[in-house]
């Protein structure tokens, strides 16, 4: 009978938290590996247009980014309200796009230099004139693969 004697006392044993650091470290390592730090701060408005016939832009090492749009409110009084191009961390004129592409291309590994894509992250309120100028510059340095970066959504969101 004594085998089934109730364990004395109702106090719960304290849960050991010794493994907590291990769990946290595990999470920490996951996020450290998965993190891609934002390499450039956006200085332009960047509300992308919507599209649904899209392809993923994998392999970040093969992509060069060109941003364009109206300068964000912080820079408005300095750079005006008309749409501008942003390359890396600063505003640039259309003429600098070619040099930027060549510099970016030279910085990549040899075997990637022919498969680079230029991602155009253009704000939806921009006029096509600026985009057209960028495209002409890209053609001049024969960076012909481009990607109009969009967000996922129905095309009708673009028309109102």
């Amino acid at each position, binding site marked *: 009978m004594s085998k089934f004697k109730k364990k004395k006392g109702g106090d719960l044993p304290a849960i050991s938290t010794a493994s*907590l650091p291990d769990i*946290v470290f595990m999470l920490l390592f996951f996020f450290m590996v998965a993190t891609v730090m*934002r390499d450039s701060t956006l200085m332009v408005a960047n509300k992308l247009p919507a*599209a*649904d016939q899209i*392809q993923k832009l994998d392999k970040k090492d093969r992509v060069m980014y060109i941003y364009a749009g109206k300068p964000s409110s912080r820079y408005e009084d300095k750079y005006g309200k008309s749409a501008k191009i942003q390359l890396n961390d600063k505003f640039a004129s259309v003429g600098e796009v070619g040099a930027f592409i060549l510099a970016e291309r030279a910085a990549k590994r040899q075997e990637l230099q022919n498969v680079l894509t230029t991602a155009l992250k253009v704000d939806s309120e921009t*006029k096509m004139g600026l985009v057209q100028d960028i495209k002409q510059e890209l053609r001049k340095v024969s*960076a012909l*693969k481009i990607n109009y970066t969009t967000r996922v959504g129905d095309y009708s969101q673009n*028309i109102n």
Partner: protein
Amino acid sequence: MAKRAAPEVNAGSMADIAFLLLIFFLVTTTIETDSGLNRKLPPMEDQVDPPIIREKNIFTVVVNKNNQLLVEEKLTDVAELRQLAIDFLDNGGGVGEEACDYCQGARDEASSDNPDKAIISLKNDRETSYKVYIAVQNELVAAYNDLRNREFLRLYPNVGLNFVDAEKKYDDPRTSAEVAEDLKPKLDVVKKMYPQKLSEAEPNKTS
């Protein structure tokens, strides 16, 4: 001298330090990948003698400075563009050598001969809004994708995917080499049936 036991380091604050780091990386993480419409620009050098293209094989799409859409010189709504483009590409009006045996279109004499000949010419104004331009591009790509999906499902019902999904699978780095190897020729066949001939003309200057 008597051997002294090394004092134990208090590791109680380890979790706090790790949490601090964890929160920092949580905040800075961006896992999402970008996506968009892939396009290819025409090379810069002018062709010496441009090939002669018959007027009926060109499908002109113009977006003017008021963001109005003109398809074959008629004012059109963007919602209708996809079907119009499909009708044009799939027309298959050619005869003899230029006949298209897989086209299911109306075989109208006045429209395109076959999908290989059919060219969509997209023009825009400098004042056109970017988002409208993207909407039009999206619909034109959708027209090609719809046709390619149809042919892919007809030719390769065993794959169990449509063209777009098959291409996505092919591009996915997690897909094994054999599967990708198997998909590639099939994708190429369908791509050749409906080649994407979408010319982005240089803009007309606004005076």
